[in-house]
């Protein structure tokens, strides 16, 4: 069975500081990993994904994520936070051959001016 955990419900970061939103996963085989962002009263917007290859994945709006197989993690990062990055972030995982995505419970990121 596949699962994903986002250990922090809320993350607060000062504007201009680096940010990290954590995600760990569990799968039987090779994972496909995704990050989505949700702004207030909106649907989920795709940020980036890891399929294979380079462990550092670059996505939209200056975000990146690092796949770490030994730690089964896929943390989302950005070097310098903007107030407009404040939103709800979801990590998701899918095993090879599985059509279904499993989502984490979400992390609310607040960037403080």
């Amino acid at each position: 069975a596949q699962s994903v955990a986002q250990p922090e419900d809320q993350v607060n970061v000062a504007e201009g500081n680096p940010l990290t939103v954590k995600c760990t996963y569990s799968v039987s085989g090779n994972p496909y990993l995704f990050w989505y962002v949700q702004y207030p009263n909106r649907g989920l917007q795709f940020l980036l994904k890891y399929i294979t290859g380079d462990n550092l994945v670059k996505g939209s709006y200056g975000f990146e994520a690092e796949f770490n197989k030994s730690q089964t993690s896929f943390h989302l990062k950005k070097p310098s936070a903007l107030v407009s990055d404040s939103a709800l972030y979801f990590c998701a995982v899918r095993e090879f051959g599985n059509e279904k995505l499993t989502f984490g419970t979400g992390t609310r990121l607040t960037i403080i001016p």
Partner: protein
Amino acid sequence: DVKVTQSSRYLVKRTGEKVFLECVQDMDHENMFWYRQDPGLGLRLIYFSYDVKMKEKGDIPEGYSVSREKKERFSLILESASTNQTSMYLCASSTSGTGRKTQYFGPGTRLLVL
């Protein structure tokens, strides 16, 4: 760009009513999904469809049914709405094939059942 649209942004229904939520995608995607989103629970899959007239149960199908008569349209049906079905409902679509496929989401329908 992929576009997934949902028929309503907000809906208010009464207990026992039959409720239809419609989703349309314009990218000829084979797969379509219905999720519900609740605070602290993330997104949970209700049903998905991998082809016209084909459907599979997700993690929480009880109290819901779906219909996919055309490739671009996927409907979620609440046969007899109950207050515990008050939630945000999100539709998504993706291509089929190997694992590279990304799910693209609609704007969501916030349903209140009184």
